[in-house]
Structures are given as structure tokens and as C-alpha cells.
């Protein structure tokens, strides 16, 4: 079986090559697999996720997702529209919009059907226990609710791969457990692939596989 995410000898540096963040990373993740990327801050976890999604361009090497080589802008846009959902440490929702309006943004990007999108939104909101909060402005939601909202937004276009960068990092213990349970549930139930960047060993232990990053290498 071909791996869903395949990275071969990926290099990435910043500041005109002065700061090397990824140094020959090799990684293969199968479809439906849940992988934790652990490591200290600055070891390159977020950069690796960005390179998988195409938000960052690698300097050299090879990255492919769902059989698509991440080589140019149109492939990146296509991946982000159809194949990849992204959840960050901070929710990055628009504070003055309602949760529903925020969740509709990915649908606008793909030009999806409104009714279908609203149904899906409702379904995800029910799964995350947020159906009663959909029409609240983000600024009126608690931290845990916002992160659950970000999770709904990332799943709106039904991506096969979910990239999560410290998704519970900004939450208290109670909410961290709740959101992570929900995340695993939504991923497992639908056979999605999850790559999770975290420095929390407890969360990593609940994944299928844990990879440790150090100095830009796995």
C-alpha cells in the first residue's frame, strides 16, 4: 500500500539558509494512521506540518500527499481545499464573526453547495457538542469551545488528512482532554489520517505511532 503522506529527504531553512530547521527528514504515514510528532520547541514540528500542507515550500527533497507531489501553488491550493484540514494551537477564528460564519470559510474557498455545507456543519457541531453555539460570535465562546470550533472548520470539506499543531496547547487540563478525545473520535470514526505535533507525552501515547524530532530530524 502506498503511504498517504510521503516525505523524502526534506530540507528547509530560514533566514537565507542561516537557520536550518528540517535536515533531511524522511517520513511515511499510512492512510488512517494517527501519528504524533514529539519534540522540544523549535525542533521543527510546525515547519514539518507546514511543509506537508504546502504552506511552506521545502528547499529540497520531496513531499507528496495522497499521491500528489507538493510542487506548486495549484497543488497546494488543491490539497488545502480537498485533502488537508489544519488545526493550530490557537484557534485563529475571526472573533467578530459567528462560529457558523467562520466554519463556512473553507466552503467558500471550494465554492461548495450551501445547503450541503450547512448540513455538514450541523452534523459536526452536534458531534463536537457545539450545535447550540454555532450562531454565537467567537468572542463569546470559551477557549475550549473556540478550539472545538476550529476543529469543525478544519473538517468542513471532509479532508482525509488532519494536521494538528499543538491543538490543545492553549487549553486547561479539563478542556485539553475533552478536545483531544473529540479529535481522536472524529479521526478514527471516519478513517482519517492524523499527524499531531505535540510536546505532551500523554497525548502522544494515545496515538498509533510516536515520532520524535530533534534538530530537524526524525
Amino acid at each position: 500500500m502506498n503511504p498517504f503522506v510521503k516525505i523524502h529527504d526534506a530540507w528547509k531553512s530560514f533566514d537565507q539558509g542561516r537557520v536550518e530547521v528540517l535536515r533531511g527528514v524522511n517520513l511515511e504515514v499510512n492512510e488512517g494512521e494517527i501519528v504524533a510528532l514529539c519534540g522540544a520547541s523549535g525542533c521543527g514540528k510546525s515547519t514539518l506540518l507546514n511543509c506537508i500542507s504546502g504552506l511552506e515550500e521545502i528547499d529540497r527533497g520531496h513531499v507528496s500527499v495522497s499521491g500528489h507531489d507538493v510542487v506548486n501553488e495549484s497543488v497546494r491550493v488543491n490539497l488545502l481545499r480537498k485533502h488537508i484540514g489544519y488545526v493550530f494551537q490557537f484557534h485563529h477564528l475571526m472573533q467578530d464573526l459567528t462560529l457558523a460564519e467562520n466554519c463556512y470559510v473553507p466552503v467558500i474557498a471550494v465554492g461548495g453547495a450551501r445547503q450541503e455545507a450547512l448540513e455538514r456543519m450541523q452534523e459536526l457541531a452536534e458531534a463536537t457538542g457545539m450545535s447550540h453555539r454555532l450562531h454565537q460570535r467567537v468572542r463569546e465562546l470559551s477557549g475550549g469551545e473556540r478550539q472545538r470550533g476550529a476543529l469543525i472548520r478544519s473538517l468542513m470539506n471532509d479532508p482525509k488528512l488532519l494536521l494538528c499543531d499543538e491543538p490543545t496547547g492553549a487549553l486547561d487540563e479539563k478542556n485539553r482532554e475533552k478536545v483531544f478525545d473529540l479529535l481522536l473520535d472524529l479521526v478514527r470514526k471516519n478513517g482519517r489520517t492524523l499527524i499531531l505535533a505535540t510536546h505532551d507525552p500523554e497525548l502522544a501515547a494515545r496515538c498509533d505511532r510516536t515520532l520524535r524530532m530533534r534538530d530537524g530530524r526524525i
Partner: protein
Amino acid sequence: MIFTNLRRHRVRTAIGAIGIALGVATMLSVVGILGGAVKMFERILRSDSEMVVFERNVSDLFFSNVPVGLADELNSQKFVREAKPVLFAIIAAPERPVVTCFGITTTDGRLKKGEWLFGKISDFHENGNGIVLGERAADFLNAALGDTIELGQGQYSVAGIVRMENGFENGGVFMPLLTCQKAFHKEGVCSVVTVALAEGHEAAEVKHWMRTNHQGLTALENEEFSNSYSQFKIMKITAWVVGGCAFLLGGLSVTNTMILSVFGRIRELAIARVCGFSRGQIARMIFGESLVISAIGILSGWLLSMGVLAALRAIPTLQGYVEPSIGLTELFGASSLAILTALIGALYPAWYAAKLNPAAALRFE
């Protein structure tokens, strides 16, 4: 997204739209007022005629000297139905330094068109001392029928008061041509000869005849005259330049609004990219926002200019002097400029937003 974004930043949107609205309103108002003034002046010259004859290469019709005898010569031509001399002058009255004066013959159609409030047209004699005042002129000169008033160096009796539709005429003094020539030491000459063509004849015949017989004079059709008369040209150019400057300011306002809008939501734009927006979609969104701001500005500016022009019409002292009107050409011109301004104003912000590196933007503090 476009409307949502604009709604979320109402103040910013309003400032941008106000900038465009003021530009549109200024342009439409200035163009409307000056265009109206030009039209009114054209009508003074026209007065039931199709052509106007004046001295070649004069900068202003007040300096034009055309022999009065030309009217008789033209009247004897088969292609002319009627030719009439008119002398334009500016005369001073006590406490009123500028009063427009029309030296006309008794058969001139102008006085027939007016509504005679006092006196009658038969009291207006060819070589008499009686003058006819426009209603507003009678008002500001504080003159009544039969009064003797002082104008320039002379004393004249008021033979009639007429209400004229045209403000310049309504605020003017009509003198018998001979009396006017004497008052301004222009015996034997007039400013223009207006020419009404005989049926079935064309302006080219008059032009040809003038070229052959009076090379120092020029005959133009009314529209040609309007397009070539330097005073009109200056007025029209002034209107568009003033309007253009207003637009420049409006454009800067839109640019500023859009730059602030982009810089103020760098993370949001990055998230939009993460959600699958392409660079093109981001650029289109910024251009779209700018165009919607512009559309609001155009509509508001148009309404504002209608208000300004309506207010001007309502001012009694301006009634008849300005005939503010906004034509489709002006509206189309102002709208096109507003749209162009919006597009140019959004160019840099759209480019900046589209080239944004989403990963770097998400780290942006």
C-alpha cells in the same frame, strides 16, 4: 466574504466610501454647475438661431467687434431667414459693479420670450432712452416702471420689467442696440450676429459666404461654437480638473482603507489561505471589497450631489444663474473614474495580500 468583511469593519468601509462619495459629489456638482452655466450662456447666444458670427480669434465675446451692417448683408442672402446683431457689455450701477447688458434690436426674440411683469414690448424703442430690466435686475437696482436709473455714465428710464427664464438675462439690462452702442462707444458694431437659417439651407453656405466676404469674422454653428469657445473650454476643463483632484483624494482614501484593511487582518488572510483560498481568490476578494466601497461611494456621491444641486436651485439669489444638471455622460464619467480609482487603490493591497506567506503570516505578531 466581501460583504462580511466590509460589514465587520464598518468605520473603515465608511471612511473609504465617504472619500469616493466626496470625489463623486464634487465632480458631479462642479461639472453640473459649470455645465449648466455653459448651457445657459449658450442659450443667450442662440436665441432662436442656429449660428453665431463673431470676430475671428477673440478671447472673449465682449471684445468681439462685428459691423452691424453685416446683419443686413446676411438678411439679404437667400440662405438666411433672419440675422440679428447683439452687443454684450458689462455696465456698473451704484452698489452693483457688474450688470450684464444686452444691446438688442426691437425685433429680437428675447424680450418676446420673457413674461412682461410691467410695461409692454411696444415701449422698447430702437433709439430711445428706455431700457427693459430683467426681474432680478429690477430687484437689486430697486427700480420700478417709469423710474430713471443711473447705469454707467448715463441715466435711463425703465420702460419695462420682464421675467426671463435664464438667470443671466433675468439679472440683466436690455438696451436698444443704438443706445447701447453709444453708452459703450461702440457705434456701428456689435459683439455677435445670430443667424437663423432659411428652410432647406445649410450652415456650410453661411460659412462659405463669410469666408469669401468677411475673412476677419467667423461663423460657427452653435454646437461648434460651444466646443471651440475658449471660455467654455476653460470652464469645462476646470470642472473636470477640480473633480479629478477630488477623485485623487478619494482614491487615496480607498488605498488607505484597503491597506489598513489588509494589514489589519494578515492572520485572517493567512487562515483563508489555509482554508483553501488561492492567491487569485484573495486578490479578487480585496478588489471586490474596493469595488463595493466604490459602488457605495458612487451612489452616496450621486445622491449628495443631487442634494447640493437641489440646494443651489433653492437659493433665491442663484436662481436662474446656475442651471445645475447632471447628464448621463457626467454620471458615467464620474462612475468610471470612481471604479478606476477603486481598482488602482486596491492594486497594492491586493498584491500584498495575495503574495502573503500564510505560514509566516500566522507567526505575525
